[in-house]
């Protein structure tokens, strides 16, 4: 029994300890219940907080999506910017090159500027010279104006002189013809009425007087015709030469028939001419061709005309205009020696005896004057006893 007492004593201590611990545990449990209530309340709060957080999270998730879209756009924008930056860097590089070029050009310009300053000084000097020349030209112009005035006076005087010459020529030829006619009439009366009182010698003298008087008549008539070609009005018309040539051939139809002459008219063109003068020209040339025919053969006359350019003219004569009407009259008559090719155009110059072939020697002179009135040229080529060709060049405009 001592051991049971130890044990009982120990159990009493242990029971006191246990009761103490139980009390402690009950304190603890009461505290825990309070703590648990507190925790439950806090859990409720935390669940409210959690619900709010879920909403907040959804909002955040949505905003994150938005941000990711923005981020994606920004990435694209950035790539674009990077690209543009590269472009700008290329531009910048080009600009640097351009700048170097400009800098170089500026240097050049400064050199030019320096040269221009020198050139300007030169120009100023030359302007001074030009003003001197200008002043001289003004004086020269005044001189020219004065001379033009003088020329117009001369011109007016010439027109008056020409008119006076024309009427003088007409009047003198008319007055010359008056006594001439008397001589002719009296000599015809002598022969007609007094032949029984005249010796043969006397009759011969009278006849030769008549001849001379008739020749003078022709000379005066021809001189009048010549003066008319120099002083008459010049009206140019574009005409078909055929009409004029045919009219002239018609004028000669009796002579042509009598001499069995043939006239060939080929390739005739239009030309700008003074019709009545051109007709006189053709009349003289064709008349000559018929008159100076060769006794051994009937006259054959060829008349041609065509338009030519300057380079093709014969004789290498210098013709200033560009286009010409080239007319030729060719015959198979008596012809002439080449040395006389200019002589025959001189006034009253003939190659034949008056008694064998009539004429005063003015026909070709008039022809030449008419061609000159047309600003043209006439030349003659001939071979003795073979024939002659007359070439006429008249400007087309």
């Amino acid at each position, binding site marked *: 029994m001592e051991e049971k007492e130890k044990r009982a004593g120990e159990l009493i201590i242990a029971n006191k300890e246990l009761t103490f611990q139980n009390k402690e545990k009950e304190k603890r449990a009461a505290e825990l219940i309070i703590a648990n209530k507190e925790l439950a309340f806090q859990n409720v709060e935390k669940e409210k907080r959690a619900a709010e957080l879920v909403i907040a999270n959804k909002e955040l998730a949505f905003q994150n999506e938005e941000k990711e879209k923005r981020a994606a756009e920004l990435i694209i924008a950035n790539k674009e910017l990077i690209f543009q930056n590269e472009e700008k860097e290329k531009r910048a590089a080009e600009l640097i090159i351009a700048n170097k070029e400009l800098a170089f050009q500026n240097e050049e310009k400064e050199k030019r500027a320096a040269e221009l300053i020198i050139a300007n000084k030169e120009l100023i000097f030359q302007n001074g010279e030009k003003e001197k020349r200008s002043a001289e030209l003004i004086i020269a112009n005044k001189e020219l104006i004065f001379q033009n005035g003088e020329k117009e006076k001369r011109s007016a005087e010439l027109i008056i002189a020409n008119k006076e010459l024309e009427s003088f020529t007409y009047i003198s030829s*008319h007055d010359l*013809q*008056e006594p*001439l*006619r*008397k001589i*002719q*009439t*009296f000599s*015809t*009366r002598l022969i*007609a009425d007094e032949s029984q009182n005249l010796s043969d010698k006397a009759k011969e003298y009278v006849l030769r007087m008549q001849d001379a*008087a008739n020749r003078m*008549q022709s000379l005066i008539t021809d001189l009048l015709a010549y003066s008319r070609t120099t002083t008459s009005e010049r009206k140019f018309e574009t005409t078909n030469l055929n009409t004029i040539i045919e009219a002239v051939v018609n004028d000669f139809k009796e002579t042509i028939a009598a001499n069995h002459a043939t006239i060939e008219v080929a390739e005739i063109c239009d030309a700008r001419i003074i019709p009545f003068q051109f007709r006189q020209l053709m009349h003289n040339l064709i008349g000559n061709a018929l008159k100076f025919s060769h006794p051994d053969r009937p006259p054959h006359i060829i008349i041609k005309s065509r338009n030519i350019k300057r380079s093709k003219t014969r004789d290498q004569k210098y013709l200033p205009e560009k286009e010409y009407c080239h007319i030729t009259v060719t015959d198979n008559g008596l012809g002439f020696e080449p040395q006389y090719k200019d002589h025959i155009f001189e006034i009253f110059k003939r190659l034949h005896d008056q008694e064998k072939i009539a004429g005063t020697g003015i026909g070709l002179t008039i022809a030449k004057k008419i061609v000159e009135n047309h600003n043209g040229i006439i030349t003659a080529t001939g071979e003795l006893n073979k024939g002659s060709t007359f070439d006429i060049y008249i400007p087309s405009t």
Partner: protein
Amino acid sequence: MKNIFLADDDTDDRMFFEDALKKVTIPTHLTLANDGLELMSNLETVIEPPPPDVIFLDLNMPRKNGFQCLEEIRNTSKLKDIPIVIFSTTTNDDAVNKTYQHGANHYICKPPSFELLVKAIETVLTLEMWQKPQPPKEKFVLVIS
């Protein structure tokens, strides 16, 4: 017998005309005048019949020329129907036309030969014999050269 009047200031031409007229086969009587004034006074004194059958008239005359005579004659009632032949040296177209416009019947250009003159006068007179005096209308020019 034809009564012919002539006015011409040239002595030789008057003589030629007179002699030529003698050679013409038609019998004629000639009254000469030295210029227009004389012609007009001749015409006045012979106004009592017979009046002239033909007047030959030169153009260029002093004191009164052919044109003036022509005008006066055509304006005188007793003379206006007398045939007038111009007898002149001019062959100018304008002058010839002017004579017709002033009332001339015919125009002879003085020829340089006597025979031609005789022929010309004979032709004109022959025409006139068989024609009544005509008012100026004919265009008939004898230009002989």
